[in-house]
């Protein structure tokens, strides 16, 4: 097998160029202020970086705690081959979220103040501490892979012993973090359309994170088995698809009830905002539920598409709840500048490149893990 750290495929080269370009834009942002590269204004102080890099990034990293819980807590051993890729994705996902946060904060050099000057009545503090501590947990969950890769067996064993406590703390922090992102927006009652606003936003965010956690694991497994030629048993993916479909169905029904309770239907008028709402619901929920609930579960194409649409739906949900849904009430239109979008793309590209490099060098996939474990025994 090709053991170069990064294969110089055309896509990787484009990704690398984008990362370099992103660094140049980031330099402008740090020297000339947020106003120089973003369309943020006093009327619209939160934009694409919060909505995409942070809100979506955290949701899409949910696969980590879902699989950790399934394997370590519920003891469903057959999902074990999925655990390392899922932890790695979550770890890198959170790293990207942190990069996004540091880009968006006006004074990122003071970010450590959340540790030394905490104000415990702030939802933002909860969000900040959860990012920090869960990232730490994910780092500790990732480290054994590293130690195994460099054949430091003593360190590997020491950290390996912490697996269960880390999994439990990780699940706890994830539950708090996913829901706290919803809680951040509960303050925006006056600004956010009732199609998304709800006093139950923390729960809605948590439920959709569980759903997208399953979808991410399915999508990623299918993608990496294509790219790296490592097949995951169809059976396992089928059960995951089933889990995803069940959570998605519950989420869909709950959203409908929730919107009725908040008078969302009555407020709805045809237009920009409601169009995006329907795309989110139909393309991002109804169609994937149909794809995943029946025979589509065992068909790789249908399953992959279903998982992709669930991911699309949750990304759209976060963008809508943070941006689209606010446009009517904020009295100001916001659309990200090309720089905001490019920097976000560059951040994602960096993540993909690092993911590949790690997969190439450390034992992440099943056969390599078994080999490495055999070598240690």
């Amino acid at each position, binding site marked *: 097998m090709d053991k170069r750290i990064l294969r110089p495929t055309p896509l990787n080269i484009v990704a690398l160029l984008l990362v370099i370009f992103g660094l140049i834009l980031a330099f402008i942002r740090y020297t000339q202020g947020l106003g120089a590269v973003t369309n943020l204004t006093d009327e619209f102080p939160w934009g694409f970086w919060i909505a995409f890099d942070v809100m979506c990034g955290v949701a899409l990293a949910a696969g980590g705690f879902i699989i950790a819980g399934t394997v370590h807590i519920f003891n469903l051993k057959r999902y074990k081959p999925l655990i390392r890729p899922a932890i790695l994705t979550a770890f890198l996902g959170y790293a990207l979220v942190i990069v996004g946060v540091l880009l968006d904060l006006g004074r990122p050099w*003071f970010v450590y103040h959340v540790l030394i000057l905490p104000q415990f009545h702030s939802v933002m503090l909860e969000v900040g501490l959860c990012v920090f501590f869960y990232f730490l947990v994910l780092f500790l969950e990732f480290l054994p892979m590293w130690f195994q890769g460099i054949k430091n067996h003593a360190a590997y064993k020491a950290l390996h012993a912490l697996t269960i406590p880390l999994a439990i*703390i990780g699940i706890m922090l994830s539950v708090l973090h996913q829901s706290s992102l919803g809680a951040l927006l509960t303050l925006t009652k006056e600004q956010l359309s009732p199609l998304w606003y709800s006093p139950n936003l*923390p729960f809605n965010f948590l439920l959709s994170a569980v759903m997208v956690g399953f979808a991410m694991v399915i999508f990623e497994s299918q993608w990496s088995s294509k790219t790296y030629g490592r097949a995951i048993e169809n059976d396992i993916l089928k059960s995951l698809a089933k889990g995803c479909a069940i959570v998605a169905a519950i989420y869909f029904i709950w959203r409908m009830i929730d919107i009725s309770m908040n008078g969302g239907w009555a407020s709805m008028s045809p237009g920009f905002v409601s169009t995006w709402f329907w795309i989110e619901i139909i393309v991002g929920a109804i169609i994937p539920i149909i794809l995943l609930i029946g025979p589509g579960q065992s068909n790789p194409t249908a399953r992959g598409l279903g998982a992709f649409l669930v991911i699309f739906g949750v990304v759209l949900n976060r963008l809508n709840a943070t941006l689209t849904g606010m446009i009517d009430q904020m009295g100001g239109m916001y659309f990200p500048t090309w720089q905001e979008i490019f920097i976000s793309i560059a951040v994602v590209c960096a993540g993909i490149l690092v993911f590949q490099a790690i997969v190439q060098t450390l034992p992440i996939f099943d056969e390599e893990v078994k080999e490495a474990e055999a070598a240690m025994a």
Partner: protein
Amino acid sequence: MSTYAMLNDLTKCIGCRACQVACKEWNDLEYHRTYFTNTRDNPPKLEAATYNRLEYNYLPDTDPALPQRWYYRRHMCLHCEDPACVAACPVEAFVKTEEGAVVYDEWKCIGCRYCMLACPFTIPKYEWKSWNPAVTKCTFCFDRIGAGEEPACSKVCLTDAVIFGNREDIIADAHARIAAAPDRYQDTVYGEKAVGGTAVMFLSTKDITLDDFGFRTDLGEASYPSYSWASLSKVPYVAVIVAALMSVIYFITHRRMPGAEKK
């Protein structure tokens, strides 16, 4: 020490903008080049270098015999008694002082801008052009108050449209003004109760409803921080319950079944 408050009597304001100028002067804020727009408001909006701004409202003539009627609403931080910005900030950059001012410390701020989203009156503004930006808003001239002075705006007001004093005295004065001319004033002191009470209060005219004048009458009397506290106060319980539940499930699923000892 009793907390201070300020009353804006909009029926007495003549729109001279002395308070706007005094504010810029005292706080040493940058001036803008002004220009004509289709309103008389200038500067056009509150922003990083404008803490205080008059909004000009012209009432359409219903009766040509009456003189033209203009009303001016002052736009500024209301220095809430239980402020949303203070509760929103993760790092105590905003505090409510014992004098009643809500003040900001840029050396604590991390720049998350949650305060801007949280404020029910959309008051905090941001220095978008700076590499090391700060949030800005009216300071209640806490530096003057601390020295026993009143804020710059109330000091310069020619017509007593803006007065400053102890909160109880100010509220009593406001109600006395209403009682003395009930056909002139709206029968509310805006800010006495809204969002749990504010230090900056308003008396408005009968000629125009509070809503039409741009006052948020839909905000209720509960303080904003009480909403987020409802979910935040549950956090420790959620944490403990989730962790305990996961541990219990772990022990159940990993229990050795009798007769299934060996792997």
